[in-house]
């Protein structure tokens, strides 16, 4: 991890202003933000370590635990809400046996919600990794999950 990290961090010596792009790049590289990585970011940028965490924990994009192989993001946008997103979320939670914010024990799925993925016309929808599953009903949930059950 150390090498991958220092490769990402090397252009950012003393760059206090670049904290958010740094966090994004480190998360891209490592999948999440381990404590040690945040410490290293603090050292590189010259920011206090508390500040690195303060900023990282403010933004929804950053995670502090490893994610599952697939990330399922249930959209909770308004259009999705009025078209039954809550039931999609419940059904997904039931199918996976976890609640929002958790990762399945086999590290296969992480379940999250997202403010809006901007596919309001196709509501309700769920984003699995990079793909959008549109116009869902609760019954379709097990099916879209099993599609990724490899």
């Amino acid at each position, binding site marked *: 991890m150390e090498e991958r990290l220092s490769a990402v961090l090397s252009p950012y010596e003393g760059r206090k202003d670049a904290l958010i792009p740094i966090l994004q790049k480190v998360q891209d590289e490592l999948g999440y933000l381990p404590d040690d990585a945040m410490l290293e970011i603090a050292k590189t940028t010259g920011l206090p370590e508390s500040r690195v965490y303060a900023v990282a924990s403010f933004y929804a*994009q950053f995670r502090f635990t490893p994610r599952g192989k697939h990330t399922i993001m249930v959209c909770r946008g308004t259009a999705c809400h009025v078209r039954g997103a809550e039931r999609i979320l419940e059904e997904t939670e039931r199918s996976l046996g976890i609640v929002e914010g958790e990762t399945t024990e086999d590290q296969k799925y992480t379940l999250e919600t997202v403010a809006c993925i901007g596919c309001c016309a*196709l*509501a309700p929808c769920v984003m699995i990794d990079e793909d959008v599953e549109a116009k869902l009903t609760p019954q379709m949930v097990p099916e879209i999950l099993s599609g990724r059950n490899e």
Partner: protein
Amino acid sequence: MMNFTEIQEQARQEWDSLQSGSVPVIAVGTATCGRSAGALGVVQAFEEEMSEKGVEAHIVEVGCIGPCYAEPLVNITKPGRATVAYKNVTKKMVTEIVDNYLKGDDPLPHYTLGSFGEGTVENIPRILDTPSFKPQERRVFRNCGVIDPTNINHYIANEGYNGLSKALTMTQSEVVEEMKKSGLRGRGGGGFPAGRKWEAGLNAEGDQKYVVCNADEGDPGAFMDRAVIEGDPHSVLEGMIIAGYAIGADTGYIYVRAEYPLAIRRLERAIEQAHEKGFLGNNILGTDFSFDINIFPGAGAFVCGESTALTLSIEGKRGMPRVAPRPRTTEQGLYDKPTLLNNVKTFSSAPMIITRGAEWFASIGTEKSTGTAIFALTGKVNNCGLIEVPMGITLREIIYDIGGGVADGGRFKAVQTGGPSGGCLPESLLDTPIDYDSLDEAGSIMGSGGMVVMDEKTCMVDVARYFLDFTEIESCGQCVPCRLGTKQLLDILKDICAGKGKKGDIDLLIELSQSVHGGSVCGLGQTAANPVLTTIRYFRDEFEAHINDKCCPAKVCKPLISFRILEDKCAGCTLCAKSCPVNAISGEKKEVHVIDQGLCVQCGVCMEKCPKKFSAVECLSPKLPVAPKETTEVVA
């Protein structure tokens, strides 16, 4: 390097040869919404079909033209004919279209949305004559769905960078003056006159100034900015460059949501191309004006839509809005330097204002709200999608003409505008004209353009709870009224939805809403209670039903509803029992089934599964009594 006239000439040639060449042009909308609907598969299908069948045509990926309900959308232009727009295209349809229209001459009218452009096609109506498009006026969306957003020449050929070229021949004050005269108001939602902001940016003192584009589109239910960036990224860049020239800035930032990867890629590409052509970088178009643009992917915080939070975020800090009294962003913004911050659509409007003049821009719309408004029309409406309409059009026209009315034959109940900061307006206000001031008066706001239609199956208490859930999560938490006020409002609304509402809750909601409005630091907090206040104002009876009668009239709030199988209608088909996720339904085949109210989680699957011909499951509110022994607490 070529001068602008030469650049334009080259671009026109490329565009014209595409438009009036001998080969058909197939334009597929591959913006995010199109992709979600399968547009990339459609592109692939065309490629495969055509190579297999030896058909020649240009495939162009374009942005979103708006009617998301019709995605994937494919526009085919055969030489000398009008463009035919195909809706909801599937792979199977691709085969038919290739066979019948590209190889043959049957445009398959039943697959089409309509036609546009010069000429006509038999049996296909012109799109702009359809009720859904007639009231629309495409200005900000002028290029979306028409040009290839990854090709700068397409943009240039369609008046692109004309505004910049013209602006550079004007003085800075002349540019600002033109913007002021246009009457353009900030399209981010607040509606502050853009020209006045530019003027303040010009007048602010400082060697270093910035231009920042707010593309942190965070309202749930809004995706107009994404569509503009994905479909016409250069219009945003051009607007920013003009703004940079007008106020004397040399650096711009686009703060764009990281959840919009395609938009970011389009911007990156566009910036690169603008550099190549000399629209960005040093000595733009041979003048001594230099300007560059950086992309800043936002990391996911709704509050960063607030200008001071956004600039702090670019600086690598927590996006916590600065506390008033504070200097204006135009005086002290990014890195405490004078900063002009506008929304995507505001910047995108600037080039046309400069090119065509302020009078042209102000020729539509109302006196105080000129130009067009863009909405993401979604929810329980037939024609979901992005629309661009002249200011002053009524809500009714939008929902019933453009939107095609309430979906699934439902009854209109409310329309929500302005996202979490806005409000829900009832049927009685449907004739309210769309402009900043009228919406404000009605208790909602223009916002950045989300418009969500709700029908009688939408519970207004639940809607208020939904929005508070959103603002509570998105509150930055620095000030007490917003941090704890939104939570308290949410807790009360959750209780009401759960049947635990108390007498006096409505008064407390109103009282707290006023305090959160008056006491919060920033706009997010100050408007956070709008959805509560408007729902109480227009739908107070629903609140009272929840609190006093433990009844959810829309039958949405689970703790207040029960499902029951009607003995006289149940045929014992067992479908419901099989699909019940918690095995709460019992009954033998061909016998009446029964729902165990103690086990039921009110998911409603049984009702959906029950064949229409039986319609044996009904939903009731208030709840049926549960046998005391088997009581289970259900938490919404």
